[in-house]
């Protein structure tokens, strides 16, 4: 079962790479992916590993990264600053989760 899941996940990752080359950058070069794989992990975990949630967090992170380019052109803020925003989003969600867990533990006790 785990093996099938891993194979499927590999297939989807390959699809992501294929789409990037065939539909976005139209070229193959070294280090094609600027950390999409790792951002993908963050996107999945932020959605608490729910497929429909991934739709939301994926679009959120996509919007952030697409907006980053505009931000650099319009306001002169380096596009990489968007990673800080993404990181803060993740850390805040983690801390909020932890706080909720603590409350529910106290409520149970």
């Amino acid at each position, binding site marked *: 079962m785990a093996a099938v899941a891993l194979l499927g996940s590999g297939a989807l990752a390959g699809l992501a790479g294929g789409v990037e080359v065939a539909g976005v950058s139209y070229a193959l070069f070294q280090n094609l992916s600027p950390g999409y794989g790792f951002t993908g992990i963050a996107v999945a975990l932020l959605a608490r590993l729910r497929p429909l949630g991934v739709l939301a967090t994926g679009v959120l992170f996509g919007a952030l990264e697409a907006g980053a380019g505009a931000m650099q052109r319009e306001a002169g803020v*380096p596009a*990489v*600053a968007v990673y800080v925003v*993404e990181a803060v989003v993740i850390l805040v969600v983690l801390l909020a989760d932890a706080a909720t867990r603590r409350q529910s533990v106290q409520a149970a006790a």
Partner: protein
Amino acid sequence: VTEPVTLLSGFLAATVRVATPLLLAATGETVSERSGVINLGLEGMMLAGALAATLGATAGGPWTGVVLAILAAVLLAAVFAVVAIGARADQIIAGTAITLAAVGLTGTIYREAYGAGGAGLSLPTLAPVALPLLSKIPVIGPAFFIQPVPTYLALVAVPVVWWILFRTRAGLVLRAAGEGLAMARAAGVRTSVVRAVATLAGGAFAGLAGAALVLAQVGTFAEKMTAGRGYVAIAIVVLGGWHPFGVAVAALLFGAATALQYVFQSLGLAVPYQLFLMFPYVLTLLAVGGVVGRVRAPADLGKG
């Protein structure tokens, strides 16, 4: 045509030079993973260390750079510790976020400080220091004992970390937090404090690794210049079986795989060097899969 001995000596020297930042980062990660904390922020902490070393070296010389690098990485490690240990959040997510934050912060600060052009900086670097007598040993001498100070720090850190982990009470407590969290807690160990200290120590090593990369290897800063070395260091810890000496051998192996490309270039061989960059990873996979040797992670690694 280069003489074989010179070639070998140059290969070994390049191996050690490339391995130094990996060894430093992996040694730090060994400490934190032995306490049960897997730190995927390592990549980001190295990167932060690299930029801080650049800024510090520009302002006040290479040693100011080293100190700033350690401080910057420890600061990130502290944030990681608050979230992953203090709030018991998922270590993998927290670490990924720390690396993301570091990529963004270093990129932004670098562009603010040096402009978007990214012209090659000329930094005051750490020159190689020849150790008396030892550097006179043929072949091995120049490779291991005519190196910048961070290399010596890395080589000394390996036995010191081994001694602390396996021969002191503090090390026993640290390993207990990684192997049997519940039991350690029941025995009255303040496991969160132990893990936080181990994480901060790992951060300090990561900062030093970043400084070594900039000041003793590359000589300049570029965005995302760690280029996955933090993740490589995590693989090295696995291949080294979470043991300081094994980790040292594994780091040298990864260093050798990279250094081979220089040999190939000087020999004029048309083998793509990327092929050799793959071998250590294959070895790591085999090691984890139990094919080569037997390695086992600390039982409570990644568990809060």
